[in-house]
């Protein structure tokens, strides 16, 4: 039985020994090197561009600009971004290409014999710009004095909105004995994956433009490349090598299209050498989107008994210069901001806003952390206002089997939030007084900065949430798998073809485990062929906590088909299956009614902190992270996701402070943008894993990978409040912000 076995990942050895080939390891010695040239202009109109001097730099082979892109536009959910900013275009793009709207807009790709020549060529490009006023942030955008996308049909920077109108607000407020409110400023977050963007492209033996890059959805990359190159998708091939982390940051294009353009142009010139490119850490941080920053104002009312009567919220997320997946992220935030509770009356308005700042986009949790932060902080403030235990308050309101959700339709079956809340509360001892001393843990945080016992205040916080598994709001959702059974009388070898991206999370390991179980053979017998659009069907992305869930269902279907073929005598017996989950819908534009999702995962966390009130340093002593995973296909990987998500949350709430001024990121390096190191992570993380089957999940499994991020920030903020009596409506809680907050609350 391979399901449930915490087996060692087949890729572990190669990854720890350095044998594994990441995108920057692929290029043969004769490969050409390409350098992307950023505009460095948050908002400016191009007046002229001259590449003559650059083309004359020794070693420069060719320079691609907007004139070389057949269809100069791309985007995952809307085509609002030019491949290159430039004056000459084919006229087939819907977005004007002569304006740079983002400092990392691309203006050219310089292909050269060496990285040095490519850099020298890039520096020799001469561009004249007419500066335009920079729409620096949400506040500036909302005035609509300057439009980032004047061509957009909305006629406003606030280009996309969602509403919820449920029940009767006047009645809701009337019934409320207590009302809490707040305005919350949510920060950006950088993915900071281990491996910056890199890739290689060439034309393969069958004439396909082939790109080997890290990504999260090979077939979507293929489609966007094909669109820009004006090729049928089957003339484009995308292969994923090993991928050094993604977290949503590789959902959108970086080098994919420009490398494909270069490979095709070289091929047309009769040059068959592959072309490779990579971004430095600075280019990576400047050049890809971030978790959205946002401003959310919320009110929450409840009766003295703690029953929620009304929720009101106004959400603004900074989409930056291009949509990326902002409309979809907004959708999730829109749902999350009401909390995982029964809410009889609700009034929610959510907007995505264009600015000339760094684009917001996919990042683990996908709007959930922003909405969830507000929902849970409001709940914790409500508990305080009511004088009620925060766990008890949640017990009284939690969504349960049969609850009507915020979009006025029943929750998909399998709602286990009440069980998750109980299990977390019990494991964390929430009904016991908090111990004065931090518990022992394997990691001793701040070994070199021992907090002074007299200056330390301990506190504890709690938060719970839900998160959709799979694509939402009517977005087409499917996943394909193919299984081939080889042998004569009995199965001797099994091949699995699957496109699902292994971004470090262990997707291919669980694919093999699930295929083995579905076919009924030991896992060693299964050979995986992964992530090549030439050999596998569309799997959808590694995102939305969906991959295990969707892959598993597709693998189950493929195994069944293969068995049928086997019985019919086919050798090899081939089973191909395309799994399609229950449909979802968009929301009614006026009321927000609809069925946004087909299933959810549930999480609760309890966090203990120590706050050094003299220095403002916060140490997280213990985290109890509780998840209903339905069925742990591989327990070690589940715990890896929990620990990784908690550490990523630690950076989000405590230290990661992206400084963006006037459209420029001022600290695009890891010396100034502080992700947690081993000395900064929580002292211990207790993973509590429940296995309450999802009725639709393969083997009962549920998605879980985003969930640890969603509750972490509000749980820490509540714990800090418990320790100090101060609510922080803005984070990261850098020591200086903490001290300033304590000082404001109790001036010396």
């Amino acid at each position, binding site marked *: 039985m391979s399901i449930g076995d915490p087996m060692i990942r087949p890729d572990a050895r190669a990854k720890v020994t350095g044998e594994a080939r990441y995108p920057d390891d692929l290029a043969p010695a004769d490969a050409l090197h390409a350098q992307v040239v950023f505009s460095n202009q948050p908002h400016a109109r191009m007046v002229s561009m001259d590449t003559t001097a650059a083309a004359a730099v020794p070693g420069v082979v060719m320079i691609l600009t907007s004139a070389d892109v057949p269809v100069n536009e791309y985007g995952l959910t809307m085509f609002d971004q030019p491949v290159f900013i430039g004056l000459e275009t084919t006229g087939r793009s819907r977005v004007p290409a002569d304006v740079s709207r983002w400092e990392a807009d691309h203006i050219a790709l310089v292909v050269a014999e060496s990285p040095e020549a490519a850099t020298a060529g890039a520096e020799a490009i001469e561009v004249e710009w007419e500066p335009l006023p920079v729409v620096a942030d949400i506040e500036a955008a909302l005035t609509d004095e300057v439009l980032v996308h004047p061509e957009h049909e909305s006629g406003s920077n606030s280009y996309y909105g969602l509403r919820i109108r449920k029940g009767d607000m006047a009645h809701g407020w009337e019934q409320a004995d207590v009302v809490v409110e707040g305005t919350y400023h949510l920060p950006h977050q950088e993915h900071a994956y281990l491996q910056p963007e890199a890739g290689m492209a060439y034309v393969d033996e069958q004439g396909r433009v082939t790109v080997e890059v890290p990504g999260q959805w090979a077939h979507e990359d293929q489609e966007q490349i094909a669109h820009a190159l004006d090729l049928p998708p089957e003339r484009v091939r995308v292969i994923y090598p090993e991928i050094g982390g993604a977290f949503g940051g590789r959902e959108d294009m970086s080098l994919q299209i420009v490398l494909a353009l270069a490979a095709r142009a070289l091929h047309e010139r009769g040059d068959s050498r592959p072309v490779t490119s990579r971004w430095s850490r600075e280019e990576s941080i400047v050049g890809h989107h971030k978790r959205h920053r946002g401003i959310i104002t919320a009110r929450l009312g409840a009766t003295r008994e703690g029953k929620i009567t009304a929720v009101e919220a106004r959400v603004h997320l900074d989409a930056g210069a291009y949509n990326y997946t902002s409309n979809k992220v907004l959708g999730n935030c829109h749902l999350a901001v009401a909390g995982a509770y029964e809410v009889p009356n609700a009034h929610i308005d959510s907007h995505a806003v264009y600015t000339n700042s760094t684009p917001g986009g996919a990042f683990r949790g996908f709007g959930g952390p922003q909405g969830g932060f507000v929902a849970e902080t409001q709940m914790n403030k409500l508990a305080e206002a009511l004088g009620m235990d925060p766990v008890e308050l949640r017990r009284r309101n939690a969504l349960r089997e049969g609850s009507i959700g915020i979009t006025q339709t029943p929750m998909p079956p399998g709602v286990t939030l009440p069980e998750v809340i109980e299990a977390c509360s019990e494991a964390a001892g929430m009904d016991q007084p908090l111990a004065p001393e931090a518990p022992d843990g394997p990691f001793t945080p701040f070994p070199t*900065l021992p907090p002074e016992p007299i200056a330390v205040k301990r506190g504890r916080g709690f938060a719970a949430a839900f998160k959709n598994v799979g694509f939402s709001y009517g977005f087409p959702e499917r996943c394909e798998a193919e299984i081939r059974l080889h042998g004569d009388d009995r199965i001797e070898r099994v091949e699995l073809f699957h496109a699902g991206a292994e971004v470090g999370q262990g997707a291919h390991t669980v694919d093999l485990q699930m295929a083995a179980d579905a076919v009924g053979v030991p896992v060693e017998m299964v050979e995986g062929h992964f992530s090549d659009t030439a050999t596998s069907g569309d799997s959808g992305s590694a995102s939305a906590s969906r991959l295990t869930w969707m892959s598993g269902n597709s693998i189950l279907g493929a195994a069944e088909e293969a068995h049928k073929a086997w019985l019919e005598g086919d050798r090899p017996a081939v089973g191909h299956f395309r799994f399609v989950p229950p449909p979802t819908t968009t929301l009614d534009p006026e009321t927000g009614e609809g069925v946004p999702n087909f299933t959810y995962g549930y999480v609760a966390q309890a966090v203990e902190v120590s706050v050094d009130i003299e220095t403002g340093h916060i140490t997280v002593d213990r985290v109890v992270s509780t998840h209903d995973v339905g069925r742990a296909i591989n327990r070690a990987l589940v715990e890896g996701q929990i620990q990784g998500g908690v550490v990523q949350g630690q950076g989000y709430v405590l230290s990661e402070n992206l400084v963006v001024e006037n459209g420029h990121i001022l600290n695009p390096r890891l010396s100034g943008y*502080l992700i947690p190191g081993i000395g*900064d992570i929580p002292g211990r993380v207790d993973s509590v894993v429940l296995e309450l089957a999802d009725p639709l999940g393969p083997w009962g499994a549920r998605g879980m990978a985003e969930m640890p991020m969603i509750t972490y920030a509000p749980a820490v903020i509540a714990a800090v409040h418990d320790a100090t009596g101060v609510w922080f409506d803005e984070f990261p809680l850098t020591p200086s912000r903490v001290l300033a907050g304590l000082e404001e609350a109790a001036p010396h």
Partner: protein
Amino acid sequence: MTLRLPLFEYRTPTSLAEAVAILSDSDGGAVIAGGGTDLFPKMKRRQTTPTTVVSLSAIPELSGIEIDSEGNCRLGASTPVAAVAASELVPAVVAAAAAEIASPQIRNTATLGGNLCLDTRCNYIDMPELWREASGHCLKDGGDTCWVAPRGDRCWAISSTDLAPVVIALNGTLRLVGPRGERETPAEALYRNDGIDYHDRSDDEILTQVMLPPFGGRATYRKLRRRGSIDFPLVGVAAAAHLDDRGTVGSIRLVVGAVASAPLRATAAEEFLVGRQLTDEVIEEAARLASHHVRPQDNTDTGSRYRKWMTPVFVTRALQDLRA
């Protein structure tokens, strides 16, 4: 664009005399490298573009730690920081401070000499060349304005060595060898509170040895940092004192690092403390005396106000350590 080292000649002299000769013949184009953990990143950012890099790694006499016949602890300048951190011959406070430097990888490569000769740091100078060009070169970078304090006429780059405050607190002596021979100087005298001209040392003088006299008192080093795993000091306080049986301070040296372009001796606080017991009130007054003239600038990622607040807190914690 990935930052790459510029071209340079790499020399590995095997004797001190040869190293001195290369340096003095180079007309200022050569620089000394210990482990290079500070130097090479600066070269990648083109803050300096030497024609020759002179590694001290192959000169045997520069490496090692020993106690001489008079009980002095003598440390060769090329001794890796990791070896200092692991040494049982050095005073415990020196090992502890060394263990707080950077990361394990950097400590394995970095040297004691490089740490004591560390260039001053600042948000404006420690940036890639393109960035510095775009923002305008600062004073330390050959420009005419300090972007941290544009109205002043000095450079405020910070002394960020963790070991210098400790060596000064322990009254260490440094040996330097140059074309004009050898000299010894109190560690304290090496440092100048000037971000550009931060050393009283000519470029062709090599720091060869650190000598710590026997010390029977109590000492501590307290480092304020943002990250537990890897971080420069934001404030570093070293204190070394002799206390009598009743806890009265007989003598004390108190040094505050990372708040100016040099480690600062807190002499007013030292004078106040002598003859007093380390009560809470006495510590509070000493912390005030040690901090009130400290003016950290806004040139780290935490801002100046926070470091100003933290100086008395860390002086207090250091003095509390001595009491314990």
